[in-house]
């Protein structure tokens, strides 16, 4: 696993770092107006800059042939990356506002799926953005219209999207082949 830790950090250190800095800046000293706007937009930022490029860039640069050509099976590669980046996103969202955790998870998962569907960065970002805003719009009405707090619902919706990503992955390549020693 530590191998994938290094790979995930090496590939995504830039985007994770500046997002963290942004969150700290907003949390530590920002007037409440910006704070409110950023807090709600954080889910979109993670979706667009973390989720969408995760797979879309690999397809676009054709480096999926490198990433999924190693011993580590593509399924584990995706699982560990989503796990690491997902939990980092949750931690940052928790810093901002607990309600955002659900939305952020959903946004991230939506981005990954959009990456699989479009396989190009800019379209993936566009779909993710539109999808995120639409779903926030649907759920944002009366928060308890679906019996659950909307952010929890989004979180569940996001959790459902992750297996969808794995299904799409296995269509793309035999994702679950065991790493041959």
């Amino acid at each position, binding site marked *: 696993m*530590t*191998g*994938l830790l*290094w*790979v995930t950090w*090496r*590939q995504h250190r830039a985007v994770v770092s500046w997002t963290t800095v942004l969150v700290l800046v907003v949390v530590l000293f920002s007037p409440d107006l910006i704070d409110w706007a950023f807090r709600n937009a954080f889910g979109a930022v993670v979706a667009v800059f973390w989720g969408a490029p995760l797979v879309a860039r690999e397809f676009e*640069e*054709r*480096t*999926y*042939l*490198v*990433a*999924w*050509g*190693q*011993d*580590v099976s593509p399924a584990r*590669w995706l699982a560990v990356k989503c796990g690491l980046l997902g939990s980092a996103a949750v931690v940052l969202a928790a810093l901002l506002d607990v309600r955002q955790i659900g939305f952020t998870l959903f946004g991230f998962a939506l981005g990954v799926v959009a990456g699989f569907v479009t396989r190009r960065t800019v379209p993936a970002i566009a779909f993710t953005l539109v999808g995120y805003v639409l779903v926030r719009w649907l759920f944002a009405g009366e928060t308890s219209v679906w019996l659950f707090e909307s952010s929890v619902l989004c979180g569940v919706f996001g959790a459902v999207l992750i297996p969808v990503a794995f299904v799409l992955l296995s269509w793309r*390549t*035999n994702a679950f*082949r065991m*790493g*041959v*020693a």
Partner: protein
Amino acid sequence: MTVRVAGVSKRVLRNCTFELPGGGVTALVGANGAGKTTLLNVLAGHLTADSGHVAVAGRVAFVAQDKPMYKGFTPLDVLRFGGHMNKVWDEYKAHSWLHRYKVPLKRRCGELSAGQRAHVAFALALGSRPDVLLLDEPLSELDPLARRRVVRDLLAEVADTGMTLLYSTHVVAELGGVADRLLLLSNGKLIVDGDTDELLGQHVEITGPAADQPPVRGDVVLARHYDRQSTFLVRCQGEAVAEEPWSARPVTLEELVVAHLEAVA
């Protein structure tokens, strides 16, 4: 058998069947769009065949034609990537390849030349100690000297480790003595699959007075008729003996491949 392909169809590939023994060097030749890359991708596991069965024994390494690589990584990062992402990783082998071809280790791959990027891709592939190495037009970015040295290094690697090498190429003239097996693909179908030495022995070009059949037993691959003269490229089973006024000439690999491709084109 290290690589077994039975009745595989995918995109343009139609019902491909062949087997590669371990430790052999096989050349995959074919016109553009004949399905070489698709076949290699299926063998590498990046594409799953629509029908048929593919079995590859052992570890597979695949280097695509455009040598894709993370442009933000330096060659050192790529070696670390190989180490982290593989159970079996031979840092020395990968590093010595980069050293031998003088690839700068600290510069980002995006800033390296195409040839250097190719060497980084080779180092990553060889470093994972594959049992089967699949290369899609490996020599296309290399200068003549590097090309010769890479062929020697790859063959030495095959000799040392008993690895099976399957590579696609357009430069047929350079196959002699390198590939001991030739697979010829034409729009998705395998039209020739044989040992290069046997193929050379079997094929002969017979020229003589105009006739519609050559004087020798064997199937005619290509026939050309002029007003008083005919030339036949024949693939015969046994020894090809041609008396006067016919004359027989041994055929080179390139002529053989071009003839087969032309016959089917």
